[in-house]
């Protein structure tokens, strides 16, 4: 467990090394990047292996940093952080494998990529609000350059929109945090101290601060109606980046809500709960319906990400242990599934067919031209629909259980969202891979019109599929970490304040 901070340091070091290695050759840069990602993932798995769940956070590093403001370089982890760092390691490794074909300025690509990952690890491990914010913002700039340099459709616009929305969200968060610090006369910036300070503020102030904090984080999580950056940005991004952005970086926002917004001002949650829940449901349903009519394959996946994140936000709003456990599980699950979906659409299909328009793809019998991609996408699609056996099912089930306890109407609406997800996923599978041409064509075996699936693609896909199956069949592996962590002293206030 004590090795966890090294995931941050190794990632940044790896970023620099990649940059240097990239000057020699692209292959060297790839090797360095993969090695770094695997090493960091290995550290997280090792920490997981030795982890005993409890309701206390495990302190990793606590050093005074800026004593004038009471800021500490404070890293800590609990079951929730552990779940998410394991996800990061997996998504990073898979993302690098699926970026194996980047040939131009490879060193720079992986430098930005690893810098982004380092920032993400930092966010998940921070226990000081200032440090949390620092890592949160560090993640913004690499995102811009990854999309602007190596992206596709509308990359400059998509990159700028994504960066500005993220930054605007973090500006709101900064305002909220400073407000608590100043008005509450906090002694320092650790989450605990800020929570104490916020508790002393008047109720109207707490309500407004919560709005700032939650909205700021929720923008990055793709909450309706601030979600418009997500489909554009994710479609514009190169495959490896989309996997990471939709899979992990959106979870930073949700994690921020969970770790910062909710525990610091729980009174605010009680006030805003209906609004957040309805916005989350609107996101689930609206994004799902939009995905149903998209013509660009990648946009379907982009909107499906917004829809799935709606479940996460709904779980956050419900503020009971069941729903919250489901939320964290859904964060992990969707991280893996989004990675798979983008990988297939972007890397396996688009790189070979050079089109993402469903109207064109449907004329190609893709399930015979790329059987591996078809199988992977079908499985990923099933997972995305919440099919039992895959990780989405226990996550959505738990959230529905939690929703039912708070409001039957919300639970029904969420169930409707599951149905819509099934509809658009099936449509995508059907139209893209099993188009009209399929029925008429004779002959056995796949026709080799396209480059074969490379070993990095296979490895990445298998890793992600294995993860979603494992968690789907044994969700208790993760839930046993998550559930005790939700009973920590900081989260207790949320339950008392938030449940109906």
């Amino acid at each position, binding site marked *: 467990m004590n090795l966890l901070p090294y995931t941050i340091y190794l990632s940044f070091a790896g970023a620099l090394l990649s940059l240097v290695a990239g000057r020699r050759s692209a292959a060297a840069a790839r090797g360095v990047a993969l090695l770094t990602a695997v090493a960091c993932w290995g550290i997280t798995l090792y920490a997981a292996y030795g982890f005993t769940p409890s309701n206390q956070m495990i302190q990793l590093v606590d050093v005074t940093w800026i004593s004038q403001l009471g800021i500490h370089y404070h890293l800590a982890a609990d079951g929730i952080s552990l779940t998410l760092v394991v996800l990061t390691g997996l998504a990073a490794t898979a993302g690098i494998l699926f970026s194996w074909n980047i040939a131009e300025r490879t060193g720079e690509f992986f430098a930005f990529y690893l810098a982004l990952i380092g920032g993400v690890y930092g966010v998940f491990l921070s226990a000081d609000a200032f440090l949390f914010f620092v890592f949160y913002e560090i993640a913004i700039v690499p995102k811009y350059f990854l999309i602007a340099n190596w992206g596709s459709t509308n990359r400059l616009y998509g990159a700028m929109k994504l960066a500005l929305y993220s930054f605007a969200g973090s500006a709101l968060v900064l305002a909220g945090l400073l407000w608590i610090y*100043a008005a509450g006369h906090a002694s320092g910036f650790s989450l605990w101290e800020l929570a104490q300070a916020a508790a002393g503020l008047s109720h109207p102030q707490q309500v407004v601060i919560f709005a700032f904090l939650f909205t700021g984080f929720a923008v990055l999580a793709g909450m309706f109606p601030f979600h418009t950056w997500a489909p554009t940005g994710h479609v514009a991004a190169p495959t490896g980046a989309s996997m990471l952005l939709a899979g992990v970086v959106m979870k930073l926002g949700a994690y921020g809500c969970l770790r910062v917004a909710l525990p610091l001002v729980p009174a605010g949650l009680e006030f805003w709960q209906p609004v957040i829940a309805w916005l989350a449901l609107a996101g689930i349903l609206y994004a799902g319906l939009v995905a149903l009519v998209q013509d660009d394959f990648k946009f379907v996946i982009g909107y499906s990400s917004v829809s799935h994140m709606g479940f996460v936000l709904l779980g956050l709003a419900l503020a009971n242990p069941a729903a919250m456990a489901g939320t964290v599980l859904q964060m992990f699950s969707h991280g893996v599934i989004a990675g798979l979906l983008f990988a297939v659409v972007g890397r396996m299909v688009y790189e070979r067919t050079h089109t993402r328009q469903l109207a064109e793809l449907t004329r190609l019998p893709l399930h015979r031209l790329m059987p591996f991609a078809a199988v992977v996408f079908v499985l990923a699609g099933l997972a995305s629909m919440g099919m039992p056996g895959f990780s989405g099912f226990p996550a959505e089930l738990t959230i529905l259980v939690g929703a039912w306890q708070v409001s039957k109407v919300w639970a029904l609406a969420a169930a409707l969202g599951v149905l819509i997800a099934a509809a658009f996923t099936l449509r995508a599978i059907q139209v893209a891979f099993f188009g009209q041409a399929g029925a008429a064509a004779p002959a056995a075996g796949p026709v080799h019109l396209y480059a074969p699936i490379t070993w990095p693609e296979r490895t990445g896909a298998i890793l992600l599929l294995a993860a979603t199956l494992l968690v789907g069949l044994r969700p208790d592996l993760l839930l046993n970490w998550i559930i005790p962590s939700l009973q920590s002293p900081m989260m207790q206030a949320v339950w008392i304040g938030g449940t109906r």
Partner: protein
Amino acid sequence: MNYGYLTLARALLPEMTLVAGALLVLAYDLIRGRRHTLPERRAAALLLGAVALAAALYDSLAVGALGPVYGNTLMLDPLAVATRAGVLGLALLTLGVAAGARLPRHPAEYVAIILFANTGFTLMGAAHQLLVAFVALELASLSLYILAGFNKDSRESAEAALKYFLFGGMATAFLLFGFSLIYGVTGELDFSRIALALAQTGMTPLLALALVMVLVAFGFKAAAAPFHLWAPDAYQGAPTPSAALIASASKLAGFTLFLRLLWPGLGALAGQVATAGNTGGWLTLVALLAGASLLLGNLAALAQANLRRLLAYSAIAHTGVMLLGVIAAETAGAGPLFYYLATYGVATAGAFGVIAVLEVNGGCQRITDLAGLDRRSPLLTGCLAVFILSLAGIPPLAGFAGKFFIFAAALQVGGVAGPAGWLTLLAIALSAVALYYYLIVLKQALVAAPAPERAGRIRVPTATAITLVAAAAIIVGLGLFPSLILGLF
């Protein structure tokens, strides 16, 4: 009360060193310059100038915080020492920038005037009396006017210098008028005595007029809106090292001077901005200046196509934040403001350094001239990225820490309810807007493909390279360990 001349001499050692250095530079060039080529003359001048600055730096640190000197004429407190050290450091950076910039026709004179300007700056850092303040300010300003117009081949340079001079001259007139009114009312020249006197008289219409005058002058000097009109042209037209100096050291010295004048000196007339009621003091005015600068600077920068003008408007926006720091100094002291000024200075000087090198290699006026920089020079790109991101306020760079401290301090003044709080929220919101134009600059450097006529690799002179890397390292280092500076106050 310390009227010892010896102490005064010790206190003024940095200034004396600088003057001596300037004279030495001029003398050397006069005697030996004829035999050398222009580049060699420039190298010699820069070297001697750097030695002088280093010596002055050593002196100011060695002299340290003596406290009041010569009957409170000068005040060598930690702020003064820090300002002097900062200004001299920034001047060293400027010399490094000059090493890579276009060759001036009279290098020795150029360096000498930089040194004179620095004399003014260091004096401004320590001034504690109206007359000394005025003299220091004028010394610095006159030197800067000349530096702005130093490029005699360029019309823009002449225009820049003229505008700067006219606006600056008018500002000086306002300042002098304000000072004389204050002297007239209080009968004192010394800041602490003025404070005592004002505590008894309170606010009168005459004093209100004096305040307005002083603040108008301050606004001019600091390029705060709506007195900023000289800044874009000056930044665009002046030779690059001059622009660097104007943007960095003069801001640092100017803010320190006015901070001393306003808080200890005119503190009694401050009023308050903690709540939204009618305050009737200069804090309200400063708040208005800050708000105007933030809005104008950020919004105007969005529309710029010329890189230097963009930096100018961004400077105006940063001035807004610095003015917020002045407001916050009531409760938080000078620490956050100084940190912000110092790191902003380094970042801007560094950015101008990059521009200077590019100027010699194909020109750099428009933002699009940066296109493809990462392929032409990874060093310049990396340094530029660090500087621009620091200006944008991205962690873990110093710009972010500076903004954070000032915002935290400003909110502590009175919570979110009053003007200080609203200003802070405005500043935070506008920083999101600012990211847009900073990213546009970086987009050109890191994303866009180079124009065919400007695609060759750039060779950066060693001195400039060392300077830029050192500046970038300072930004990163201070960003990671801000306590190094904050702990001084």
